[in-house]
């Protein structure tokens, strides 16, 4: 029955024992976009026991250039990514139990899904969700692998609760940056390079070869020809609210989450960041104009047309998303533009 896995079992650090371990493992993957497609495919082909996929979006034509699980037919049907991924992955390997969850990976859903999970793979597109993953992972002592990319630039870091620093030790707060795949683009090789780092680390964790883990924060730029590996030994912060001695898991607290509300009778969702931020509207408008977006602006707001929706962003980070009543779709549009 292991014939299909023979080549990875010939690889000494995995072997027959490793394959038995892989077979029993449950991976929770948050996001089924570019990173999710390829990570999901590698782990499914590797023969893990169960893969749970969470995603809130549906397949669009602009995904096909890099999100390798999806087809033109999925676009035509506007299939939710989690469902389209499940369909394709089941066709690739029927041994693997694939569970698709169409939804927003908020703390409540993460809390529900993290039970009996051996590893969380980050394939999301925003720091708010990553910080929630980070807290859940610390709380339930589940390893997770951060991966992210934009343009030709990518990075990854493996977080083992109790051993390595966590994402909150590194970042201290959610970075506001406005650089996303929807604003500065992305090329497929960047995705694949991030996935190579994430999935190799995933296999090490699944076969319990912890000594082989990389321990460094890797980042690279495939177009500007840069590669860096940063040691993280000094970063672990005992005062960290996510992994230190006095933990509060701040990103599982509703107070620290983005506030979303449907505006009555207007087919509009309002989004407000948890803390006041200051957006340089001029810079944002001129940047979005250089892309394919139709942008209008004045000193108080920037209005962006994106598909059937219109996003209006105010200087304090508050936004109105017109053309939807769906909170998770609105959050998705907001984070695509503002990161």
């Amino acid at each position: 029955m292991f014939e299909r896995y023979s080549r990875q079992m010939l690889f000494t650090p995995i072997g027959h024992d490793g394959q038995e371990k892989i077979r029993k493992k449950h991976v929770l993957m948050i996001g089924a976009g570019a990173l999710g497609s390829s990570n999901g495919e590698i782990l499914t082909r590797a023969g893990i026991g169960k893969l749970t996929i969470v995603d809130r979006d549906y397949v669009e034509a602009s995904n096909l250039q890099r999100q390798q699980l999806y087809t033109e037919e999925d676009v035509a049907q506007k299939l939710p990514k989690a469902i389209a991924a499940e369909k394709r992955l089941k066709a690739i390997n029927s041994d693997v139990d694939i569970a698709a969850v169409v939804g927003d990976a908020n703390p409540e859903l993460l809390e529900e899904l993290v039970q009996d999970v051996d590893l969380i793979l980050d394939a999301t597109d925003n720091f708010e969700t990553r910080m929630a993953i980070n807290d859940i992972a610390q709380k339930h002592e589940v390893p997770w692998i951060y991966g992210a990319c934009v343009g030709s630039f990518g990075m990854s870091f493996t977080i083992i609760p109790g051993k390595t620093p966590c994402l909150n030790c590194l970042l201290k707060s959610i970075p506001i940056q406005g650089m996303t795949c929807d604003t500065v683009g992305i090329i497929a090789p960047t995705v694949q390079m991030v996935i190579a780092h994430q999935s190799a680390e995933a296999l090490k964790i699944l076969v319990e070869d912890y000594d082989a883990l990389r321990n460094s924060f890797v980042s690279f730029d495939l177009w500007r020809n840069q590669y860096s590996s940063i040691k993280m030994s000094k970063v672990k912060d005992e005062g960290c609210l996510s992994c230190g001695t006095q933990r509060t898991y701040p990103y599982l607290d509703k107070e620290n989450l983005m506030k979303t509300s449907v505006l009555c009778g207007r087919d509009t969702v309002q989004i407000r960041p948890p803390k006041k931020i200051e957006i340089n509207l001029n810079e944002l408008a001129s940047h979005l104009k250089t892309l394919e977006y139709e942008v209008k602006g004045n000193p108080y707001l920037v209005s962006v047309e994106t598909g059937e929706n219109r996003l209006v962003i105010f200087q304090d980070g508050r936004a109105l998303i017109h053309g939807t009543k769906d909170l998770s779709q609105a959050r998705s549009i907001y984070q695509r533009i503002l990161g």
Partner: protein
Amino acid sequence: MNKILFFAHLKDTVGEESIRIDVSGKSVAEVKSYLSDKYQFQKFDTVMTAVNEEFSSDDEIIKAGDEIAFIPPVSGG
């Protein structure tokens, strides 16, 4: 003298991958503030800093000969 390396779009803003200046005795936060003014970087305070290939906090003091790299965190996926 110190070598300062810029990653990703920071490299484009500066126009070269690295510069050499003397910032010994300054904290990482002071170096960030200086470079941010000089190159008009946006949102430079959330950029990650490595000193001699080791992740460093904003209050770390730079010594002569230290190599400093600035790496912007990204969120796409």
